[in-house]
């Protein structure tokens, strides 16, 4: 079997909230699972995330949100499209009410993960989305 480059995933937080336990735990888990993880501290600007995705040739962007910053994700999706990065898959994890989840999925987010979800499910999703992107 030809050796596959591991998935490359950005784990980030956009907006104003700083609660980063979720993003740190997910980043550590994905790294332990053999993926290449680019972790950013909280408070990233959307433009900075798009730039990072370009520079790193990321397969997946994981956005963690505890305090309604997920409401900015549709803007992130639009910015990725304008930058020609519509193939980069975006997943969101955190406190996302059901109505907002539907809005995010309509905006092109691939998956939304909630508190209590298994880390293994997030890793599986990142692998599957990477596979889709590279196909």
């Amino acid at each position, binding site marked *: 079997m030809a050796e596959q480059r591991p998935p490359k995933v950005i784990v980030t937080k956009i*907006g*104003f*909230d*700083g*609660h*980063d*336990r979720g993003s*740190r*735990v997910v*980043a*550590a*888990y994905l*790294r332990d699972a053999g993926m290449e*993880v680019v*972790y950013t*501290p*909280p*408070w990233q600007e959307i433009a900075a995330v798009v730039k990072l995705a370009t520079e790193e040739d990321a397969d997946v962007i994981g956005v963690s949100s505890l*305090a*309604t*910053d997920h*409401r*900015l994700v549709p*803007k992130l999706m639009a910015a990725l499209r304008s930058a020609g990065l519509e193939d980069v898959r975006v997943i969101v994890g955190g*406190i996302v*009410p*059901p*109505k907002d*989840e539907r809005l995010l999925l309509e905006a092109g987010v691939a998956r939304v993960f*909630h*508190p*209590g979800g*298994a*880390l*293994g499910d997030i890793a599986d999703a990142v692998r599957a989305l990477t596979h889709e992107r590279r196909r």
Partner: protein
Amino acid sequence: MNKPINRPVAQTELEQAERRWQAAFEASPGAARRAVNRSGFEVKPLYTPQDWPGERYLETLGFPGEYPHTRGIYPSMHRGRSWTQRQLIGLGVPEDYNARLKALLAHGASAVSLIPCNSVFRGYDADEVPEELLGTCGTVVNTVDDMARALADIPIDRISCALNDPSPFTLLALVLAVAKRRGIAWTKISGTSNQSDCISHFVANHMFFRLALPGARRVLVDHIAFCNAQVPGWNPLSVVGQHMQQAGATPAEAMAFTLASAIQYAEDCQARGMDPDSFLPRFTFFFDISVSFFEEIAKFRAGRRLWAKIARERFGAKDPKAWRFKFHGQTSGVDLTRQQPLNNIARVAVQAMAGIFGGLQSLHTDSYDEVLSVPTAEAARIAVATQNVLREEAQLTEVIDPLGGSYYLESLTDQMQAHIESIIARIDAAGGMYQAVEQGLVQRMIGDSAFAFQKRVERGEQTIVGVNAYQTEEDPDAYSVLEYPQRERIAAQLARLAEYKAQRLNAPVASALDALARAAQGSANVMASVVAAAEAGATHGEICACLRRELGFGQPLAIV
């Protein structure tokens, strides 16, 4: 009269009895199961006088209100006066906040607490940020007019106000400006700057800071000096273990980091020539209360005893008020589950009881739906009612420190204290808390503990009801969540801000901001200038922008 001849016999009988029980226990089902608490201590199946002989009572426990305060900081504790019911509130525009505050005060809350919008935390006015984030999980408060509306009809000379207000403490400045408008003397204002501990925010949750760490460090000491002199009923410092425990620190680590931070701040005040007997009585603490019941009680008792010792021995404080470990507790949000959310009401009750038995001075109980959204009005009411039930019905408060003297709890309290002291020694060896944070020592410990806990959950070693056991199928739409503020309300708030800026006198604002910049450049008290700027009509965002320019913008010290 002592009868020494009897003691060895009694010991032998006790030992024989214990061996007998040990054999019977080991033959029983489940005897092989190991139990470990969140701080990593092995928990035995039974504790006896062998574990805690109860000697040196006066030295280790003593009486409530007397050194070393193990049993409480006041002689009467909750028997004499209830803890303060201080529910965190933050939503929408000032009128939304005011309505929720009045409702909770009517239901039994007994103090004010204000959480501003995240844009305010970051140091911006509403007209500088994306509209989607305004008022979604905190109240938009930018001007003295906003604060006046938020606190309309609230007797701020008689009720204590806690403000989630990081450096440079603009919300307190706005409250003081409102007090002046109403003719209330600042000596009548009481409350707490409950997010003033800049270190905890740089290492965990990264919420409550606006300025780079060296500037924040200096402004904090200015703030303490200003309040001690001008607003003597105000607690300028709340040293926060809550963020670190929510971010993953174990209860023992969270207590150790908190005390190490308090030591750092006290040293900073001393370096300014301030007297521990003047500033320590206004130091307060703020902790997370997890559902690990006995461990939390032991954490609080150990922390209280240790702080009394640190204040008296390390800082040489002579005033007994300076030894008091006054703390606010908040039930742990991380313990709450999105699955079967009504179960959270039971979790919160257990957490709250741990805080009460731990001897807290004020308490926030989480709403069961905090894991779904900002609390709905009904869930917020139930959280207050939970405290009412515990206080009024359960007879928890008749006896002071009712679990004191338990072989288990006292042994655990001793073990907790020894572990906390060993972590403080590591931080001392690193050169104090600022150094330990700059080296990443504290962040790594927190991150490792968070990851270890999550792995215990994933392996099923830590059961969480509804998450990795007792799961049920649930309709995600079964529970109502708080709606975001309507666009028209946010638009009206933005219009009011524009009108405020257009109508005020600009010359005094400019000159106050200029004075603030000069204070920051020199060594004058920055907090005094922040308050003067707020009184002159400067907005929150303008004050923060000025200090960002002078003192630098804070970035999270986050690592994985």
